[in-house]
């Protein structure tokens, strides 16, 4: 019943897309479409929540669509329900935010039809239960998000971003088709339960490689991440929130469904590879984020970092599962799922904030913003909560999932293999480094754009955004706080999923007193988000009260001291580039081949000094540029064949005939 309901909602979303095409000219189109998709996503969310909470049995249906002899299989089990919740929570938030943000959209007729279709695509991917409908909805999701990325197609960068995105997306899909080809075997039984039935005892390592390419490219693992920072900022903000916060999780779902559920038992070195890719992705993502000036590109790169953290958790779970340690695997897998859930919350919140700044000031470049705290109070508080959450700082949810991941890492000395013994602590260090750099990155983001003095007049005339956007941000900020304070509830909600995937689950958390969470044993480690939050709040309030009771309460406003320099110009403030200069010096020379040139004018010359930083994206230079170069060289060389004379074409035909006859002569 629940599955039928959610399939009907997905179909309604598709119908909504068609309605949007008809309503394109209507003034109320934006409100109608976004409110309808909000209602539908909330219905889907509720349905999935009920299914997960009541730990209902998996439901499956077969529709007469899709491959003729296979039919379209759909399934709602714990794993699908968990990711449905995640998808529809992000989708509901984005639709709610869209009600306000959508009005500023310059070409609504290009966004409205594809938005509900994109949501439907994501919902269908999570519920698909056979290879064809899975890939159909997967590619359909990429197609609709490509159309959304191309919404502002007048800007050449957006077109380039859209092109790179759809190219990488279809490359990923081809990899997944190959993976399913291997799993389904030559006789082509593509239904997932048939695949499970014939899952080979020894894990097929090509499937891992192909799924890493297919799902990894969609999630944004390092060598395949180049499209993400191009495409996500190009889309309208609530769509980039969906793409970063939700679509990457659908890729994680695909990874988990195929490797944990469908293919046989993993080898130990699978975990090692996923772990190392995750660690590398985390650090590379955040280092790139520190070098960017554009708000949305920083958030896109930080998505790559968080996906790295999720994949470290998944890699650990694989390693534990390969060594038959189900409890440790359950902990690592819960940490990964919890971080994916948290990332959806705070990344959507931050993209909503970026959208609010964009609609208020029309600017995305941090160098032109500043002092927004005075002009956009509600957005500032929401974005501050998001920044604290994403920097994994204690009272909020980012820290809870990071803490669980560290606990999982600390469990790994029980792993016998040498490779894991070396790589797990190394990746633990990479993870810690990424977390610290993330904190620095978001101090920079919040400090440069929201604090200080406005650097451009456009930031000066900023105004608070409309009620819808603010409420959406407030809701997501509250959710971050709630998930940070009461992680026990989330962990217990995820228990059925973890049980289904890894065969065991973490001990029940909600029964522990004072709402604290104890991953393995009380003696080992425990963390209580609520108490930490209360302690800080109480002691801060107590100190404020005592200080205001005994110390002086008077305040005097005066020009800033600034060591006596009376220079009011805002340009003297630290900009995004200067803030990241120390970190760039430390990490940049190695990772980005960073070169700094300073052109000092000769004495007496009044022209300003020029400072130029040159960063190179090595992944693009050594992986993508050679490939596109090779394709264009081959295309040039083959292009000659278009301009031959008829005689030469005939000689081609002649050669073909003679060679075939030779084959025949030699053949027998």
């Amino acid at each position, binding site marked *: 019943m629940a599955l039928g309901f959610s399939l009907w909602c997905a179909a309604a979303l598709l119908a909504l897309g068609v309605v949007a095409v008809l309503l394109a000219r209507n003034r109320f189109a934006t409100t109608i479409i976004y409110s309808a998709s909000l209602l539908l996503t909330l219905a889907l969310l509720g349905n999935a929540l009920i299914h997960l909470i009541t730990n209902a049995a998996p439901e499956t249906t077969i529709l007469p669509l899709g491959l003729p002899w296979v039919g379209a299989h759909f399934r709602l089990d714990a794993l699908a329900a968990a990711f449905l919740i995640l998808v529809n929570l992000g989708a509901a938030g984005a639709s709610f935010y869209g009600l306000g943000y959508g009005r500023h959209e310059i070409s609504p007729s290009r966004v409205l039809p594809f938005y509900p279709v994109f949501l439907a695509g994501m919902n269908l991917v999570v519920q698909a239960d056979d290879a064809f409908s899975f890939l159909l909805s997967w590619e359909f999701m990429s197609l609709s998000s490509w159309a959304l990325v191309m919404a502002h197609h007048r800007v050449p960068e957006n077109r380039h971003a859209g092109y790179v995105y759809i190219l990488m997306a279809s490359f990923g899909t081809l990899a997944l088709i190959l993976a399913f080809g291997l799993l389904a075997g030559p006789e082509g039984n593509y239904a997932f339960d048939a695949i499970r039935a014939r899952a080979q005892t020894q894990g097929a390592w090509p499937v891992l490689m192909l799924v890493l390419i297919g799902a990894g490219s969609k999630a944004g693992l390092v060598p395949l991440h180049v499209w993400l920072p191009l495409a996500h900022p190009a889309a309208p903000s609530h769509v980039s929130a969906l793409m970063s916060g939700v679509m990457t999780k659908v890729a994680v779902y695909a990874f988990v469904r195929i490797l944990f559920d469908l293919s046989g038992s993993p080898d130990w070195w699978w975990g090692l590879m996923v772990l190392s890719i995750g660690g590398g992705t985390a650090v590379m993502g955040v280092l790139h984020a520190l070098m960017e000036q554009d708000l949305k590109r920083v958030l896109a790169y930080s998505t790559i970092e968080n996906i790295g953290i999720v994949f470290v958790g998944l890699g650990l779970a694989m390693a534990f599962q390969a060594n038959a340690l189900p409890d440790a695997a359950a902990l690592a897998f819960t940490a990964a799922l919890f971080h994916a859930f948290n990332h959806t919350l705070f990344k959507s919140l931050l993209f909503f904030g970026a959208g609010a700044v964009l609609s208020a000031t029309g600017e995305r470049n941090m160098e032109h913003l500043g002092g927004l705290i005075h002009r956009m109070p509600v957005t500032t508080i929401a974005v501050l909560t998001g920044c604290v959450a994403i920097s994994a700082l204690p009272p909020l949810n980012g820290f809870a999932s990071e803490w669980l991941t560290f606990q999982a890492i600390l469990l790994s000395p029980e792993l016998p293999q040498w490779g894991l013994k070396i790589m797990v602590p190394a990746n633990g260090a990479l993870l810690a480094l990424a977390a610290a750099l993330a904190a620095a990155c978001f101090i920079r983001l919040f400090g440069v754009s929201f604090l200080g003095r406005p650097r451009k007049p456009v930031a000066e005339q900023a105004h608070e955004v409309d009620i819808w956007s603010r409420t959406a941000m407030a809701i997501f900020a509250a959710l971050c706080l709630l998930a940070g304070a009461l992680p026990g509830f989330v962990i217990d909600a995820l228990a059925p999923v973890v049980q289904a995937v890894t065969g065991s689950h973490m001990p029940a958390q909600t029964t522990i007193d004072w709402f604290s969470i104890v991953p393995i044993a009380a003696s080992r480690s425990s963390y209580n988000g609520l108490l930490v939050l209360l302690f800080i709040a109480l002691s801060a309030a107590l100190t404020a009260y005592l200080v205001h009771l005994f110390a002086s309460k008077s305040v005097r406003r005066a020009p800033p001291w600034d060591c006596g320099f009376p220079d009011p110009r805002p340009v003297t403030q630290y900009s995004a580039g200067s803030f990241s200069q120390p970190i760039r010096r430390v990490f940049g020379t190695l990772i980005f081949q960073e070169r700094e040139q300073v052109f000092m004018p000769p004495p007496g010359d009044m022209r300003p000094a020029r400072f130029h930083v040159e960063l190179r994206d090595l992944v693009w230079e050594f992986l993508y540029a050679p490939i596109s170069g090779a394709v264009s060289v081959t295309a040039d060389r083959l292009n000659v064949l278009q301009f031959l004379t*008829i005689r030469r074409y005939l*000689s081609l*035909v002649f050669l073909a*005939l003679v060679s075939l006859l030779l084959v025949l002569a030699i053949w027998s």
Partner: protein
Amino acid sequence: MHGLAFDIAHLLAGGLVLVSLMMLYQDRLPALINVFALHAILLAASVTWQANIQHEPYLYVTAVIALGFKGFVIPIALRRMIVRLGIHREIETVVGIGPTMLAGIALVALAMVVMLRVTAQADPLAREDLAFALSVLLLGLLMMVTRRNAVGQVLGFMSLENGLILAATGAKGMPLVVEISVAFSVLIAFIVIGIFLFRIRERFDTVDIQALDRFRGERP
């Protein structure tokens, strides 16, 4: 059917291959046309001989078409045309005569190898005929490929088509042979008129004289 009848048919088909090789050898256009006329006549002889062996009256029609149309009408038209277009002087081949002849012989050998593998129970005449037909076809194609001049290529195509007619007549009892030879003759007529109408001088692809490679589909 063995004995003399087989030998004569065999002789005529072999002669046809020999004349094809002779056509490869020519480097003067008028001479080439004359050799082609000989080629057509030999084909006509072979078809008439097949006709009376297989006692099929309609083969005579094909023979007459081959003799009349390709033996006389086309050579005369071509000769008058090359004088009008003033291309009767030189004939440049893409590759020298020597290598072309070697290639021709190699092709004949290839045809033999491919065809003779046909099992013995197929009657020997058909097998021999096919081998020779395939050789004539390959030589015709080789001529089309190694001649720069449009007329040379057309002659190559016609000799290729003669090979086809030889094969068709060799297939005893095959219906539609006459219709096919008529269709091909119409085709040849189209080509010759096409050349004459569009005054192709140098190569196939320059439709008219002043073209000189001006346009060949999206030249950059």
